[in-house]
């Protein structure tokens, strides 16, 4: 029993670890490729989402999304860092959303 649980644990944790490693090593090429290939082209507009659009897509995944007017700039800075960590958002997402919230309140 004990050995089987440890075995299962080892398998699942190593699968997780390898996915993480794969993604972190893949990350650079993907980012630079898309950035250079599509820079200035029409596609760029489709890929680069605005802060407002990201706010609409990201901030309602767990709770109803608050409106920019609900908080002042200082509060949005604290909330953005809190949500970046709690919701495990990417730096790109939270940076764009934070500037949208601060510009539209």
């Amino acid at each position: 029993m004990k050995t089987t649980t440890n075995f299962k644990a080892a398998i699942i944790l190593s699968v997780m670890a390898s996915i993480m490693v794969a993604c972190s090593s893949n990350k650079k090429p993907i980012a630079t490729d898309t950035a250079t290939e599509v820079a200035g082209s029409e596609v760029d507009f489709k890929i680069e989402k605005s802060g407002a659009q990201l706010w609409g897509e990201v901030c309602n995944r767990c709770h109803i999304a608050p409106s920019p007017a609900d908080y002042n700039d200082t509060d949005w800075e604290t909330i953005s860092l809190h949500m970046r960590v709690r919701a495990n958002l990417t730096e790109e997402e939270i940076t764009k959303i934070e500037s949208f919230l601060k510009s539209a309140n």
Partner: protein
Amino acid sequence: MTLIILGLGSSALAQTYNTFEPSKTQFMLRGYGHTGFEYLDTGGEQESTFLGATFAPIFLYKHSDKLMFEAELEFELEGNELKTGLEYADVMYVLNKHMTVRAGKFLLPFGTFMERLHPAWINRLPSRPLGFGHDGIAPASDIGVELRGAFDLGGPKLNYAVYVTNGPRIKDGSEEPEEAGMLDFGYYEDVNKAKALGGRIGLLPLSDSSMEWGISAYTTNSTGAEDSDYKDVGAFLWALDLSYVKSITPLQGVVDIKAQYNSSNVDTATYYEIEDGISEPYSFDNQSSSFYTQLSYSPIMSGSDFIKQLEFVGRYSDFNAPEGAEWEEKSTQYAFGLNYWLSWRSVVKFSYQTTKMEGGHDSDGTTRTNGLFVHWAIGF
């Protein structure tokens, strides 16, 4: 003279204005409260009560763009007693673009319900699904350290969290014989040298972030005290979770689907049952599981201001505790709700819930419990 006064006046004015500059460090006091009324019919026995109110202040302190502290206190009136709790208290530091470290007591990313969805102003129903909360099988919070972060895969996104914590304690039955073999995740003091190791990987395959799949694992080599018979009783838990939230124009509203499956495997051990003064050893295959899925719909595109604020919810959940344990149980539950949202964080919830339980703590037969709930929750 007038010039001097004017001069002084304007510098004083300038100083006053200066205090409106945002400070580098920021402190925020937020939180939520909830209360309600419930009517329960348990196998023909009725009871009704206004529930003790809960007040949960949350303290957020942002020291810099990278360093932050969060803590939540919980005050709850249970009967005549004021129960207090420290839901979490941890410090987080952004190491780089893809890595944040957290240390302290934090909510565990084992699936998503406890970490992201359980606060009363987020949970669409007044109750938790079976398997979570008191006597639940999913770990909710613990003390330790965690690394987490997210990657943009050029459309899809991936996030991860790995943590080491003190881990649970096994209930050996010496205090509560009817709970022998249960894992106690609320026992924060470390009972042994072994630590619990866990993690979650979340994948958002669609570029609009509407869907997230998550897989979590949690393992420990020892759940008993160093000098006890239960020292070598290890445990392995895993979970799968799903979230899908999308605004669908033909449906005039937002569809929100949530689901989580939890599985818990604890190494087999011998427990003792006292019958007629004699201690009888017994053992069982210590495997439990639970599952829930929830669908909610809010017609936010409706032309009517009243209908816009409504939300319809349905949830199914089940829970299976090991056969042969004193706490052997098979339960299924259906819950239906109608919510009225007063703001993005305050809601009045009306719900009906029916639970069928075979076995359980203090009964052998099947018990059916029907409940009507009216709850309100407000975040601030």
